């Protein structure tokens, strides 16, 4: 899936992240490749336990202790991040070039720090700025729509939506090239959700920042998406642009997933996917979606190839492999 596009900001090739567990090896991220351009937003969709968050952590190298296998290539601006050692990665990449809004970030703010100091902290840590840090924090508070006088408040004095904005401000304060957002709106109310998505859209318009948005909420993700990566059981089964994904997805899993989304404005027959995703321990060979797939055939017993559908679109399915086999 290599795309030697000069515009590419992030290029991930064959990334693997396995964990050791008591039951065996958990194949959480299993040979994932993707690329992302500058000022582009990619949505990573999938059910819980399909490896979305682990993919983000693998890119940002936030690893637990029980790593079994961590290989592949992650290029950021043509620099292979896998060549850096942990200290170099911490100093030059994490929160300098790539930052993250972790899951439930609004509940993980430090309760004994004023939110303004907390947002300024990355600047102090990475650039040892003091005065300027607070000034920049003030600036970023305005960008995410938190009143500047909230900077001297503590986290518990803010509502959920405001705390989530503070968490986003923390990720933006160093002006990174790439921000990874892990379920940024899932615990919020609809109106607050719409507000946060407006903030993200505005930031994307005003700056050159790229986004990776990890979510299982397909409707909300469409508010920001330029491209969609659909994950199933550790694989990216489909990479597509948003226009095509939301109207005519390729992979049977994506099609089923789209058919299960309830819509407000049109009536449609809702479908669900019978069965459940496989456990990521001791996976059987072959297509991982095959047991639940309505269009499976004999070939699905082998691991499907990644088929290039043109225009940076890829699908990992035997149905599209006729005559265009790649790997």
């Amino acid at each position: 899936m290599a795309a030697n596009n000069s515009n590419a900001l992030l290029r991930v090739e064959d990334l693997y992240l396995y964990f050791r567990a008591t039951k065996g090896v958990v194949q959480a991220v299993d040979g994932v490749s993707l690329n992302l351009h500058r000022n582009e937003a990619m949505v990573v969709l999938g059910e819980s336990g399909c490896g979305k968050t682990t993919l983000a952590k693998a890119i940002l190298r936030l690893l637990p202790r029980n790593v079994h296998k961590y290989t592949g290539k992650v290029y950021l601006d043509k620099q292979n991040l896998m060549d850096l050692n942990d200290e170099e990665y911490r100093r030059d990449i994490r929160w300098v070039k790539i930052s993250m809004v972790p899951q439930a970030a609004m509940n993980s703010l430090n309760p004994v720090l004023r939110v303004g100091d907390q947002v300024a902290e990355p600047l102090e840590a990475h650039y040892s700025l003091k005065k300027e840090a607070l000034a920049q924090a003030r600036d970023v508070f305005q960008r995410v729509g938190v009143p500047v006088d909230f900077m001297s408040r503590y986290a518990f004095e803010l509502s959920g939506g405001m705390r989530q904005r503070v968490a986003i401000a923390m990720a933006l304060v160093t002006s990174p090239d790439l921000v990874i957002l892990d379920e940024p709106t899932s615990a919020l109310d609809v109106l607050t959700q719409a507000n946060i998505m407006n903030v993200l859209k505005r930031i994307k318009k005003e700056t050159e920042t790229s986004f990776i948005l990890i979510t299982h909420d397909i409707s909300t993700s469409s508010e920001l998406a330029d491209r969609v990566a659909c994950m199933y059981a550790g694989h990216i089964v489909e990479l597509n642009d948003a226009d095509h994904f939301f109207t005519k997805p390729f992979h049977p899993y994506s099609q089923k997933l789209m058919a299960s989304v309830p819509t407000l404005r049109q009536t449609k027959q809702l479908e669900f996917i019978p069965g459940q995703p496989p456990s990521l321990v001791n996976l059987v060979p072959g297509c991982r979606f095959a047991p639940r797939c309505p269009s499976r055939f004999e070939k699905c017993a082998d691991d499907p190839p990644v088929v290039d559908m043109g225009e940076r679109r890829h699908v990992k399915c035997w149905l599209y492999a006729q005559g265009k086999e790649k790997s």
Partner: protein
Amino acid sequence: MTTDIESKNNSLLSVRDLHTWFELRKWGFGRAGFVRAVDGVDFELGYGEAVAFVGESGCGKSTLAKTILGIHRPTKGAVVFEGRALGKLKAQEMQWYHSQVGYVQQDPYGALPPFMNVQHILEEPLLINKVTSKAERDRRIHEVMTEVKMTPVDDFLQKFPHMLSGGQQQRVVVARSMIMRPKLIIADEPVSMLDASVRVEILMLLRALQQSHNLAVSYITHDLSTVRYFSERICVMYAAKIVEQAPVDDLLREPLHPYTLALIAAIPDPDANNARTFKEVPPGEPPSLINPPPGCRFHPRCAHVIQGLCDQQEPPSFEARPHHLVECWLFK
């Protein structure tokens, strides 16, 4: 202010001017005020009818459910079930009431006791309600497990909740709420913890059960987009009150209350064009329920506010269209 005139004679549940306030204490004994979690709610629920309560978190929808279930005691007003007021029931009658009303909780894992297997979980309500024959209990357990499509039944009965997937756990919760053959099910965000593909499955299951058993269901949710597939009537709640009440299609096609309009506008359908436009969102946040604003509770955020009216007098319920009730001065 009672609604649904035609179902008045045969309504299963009627909630009249219901208030549930929680006392705020100061220094352990002084009274610092009240959280008005439910503040004047009226509605009727007929046999076999599905009503959805939609609102943001903190608007009182779960408190309303728990008051109907008898978990919270109403401060004022009454819950009347089959013509009998809840507050006047004796302990024994309360047990009867609880067997007539099923409860489906939000978080299935939290709702199931971790040390009981499925057999014990489903048997307990039967034992409490004195179904003494073991054969009868087993028959009913098998029946209800088949209804929620947990087959083959015997494979599941010995399992503990942690051995089941989220969707299966929620099925067990549904089975438990159904086992006494209730007339009313209260489902408090039954699918918000589940994945998209499983969510639809559980909703369709609940819908099928509702129709085959002529169950009344009150479905509490924050997700307006699932309501269309599940219920006949919607009540939109804002700051402890029902602000709009209408049949589903009517409300989704032509919402009247400014809050409902904002809520519907904020919900996206999956469409790549969403990324190109900004959404209109009313400013501010829902009010505190300790000191709600005077007049209409939405007026500080409302674009159509009428000065001198909306900020002073609480709007009564207007029937803007047949069966379409709205608490807003615009429809005087």
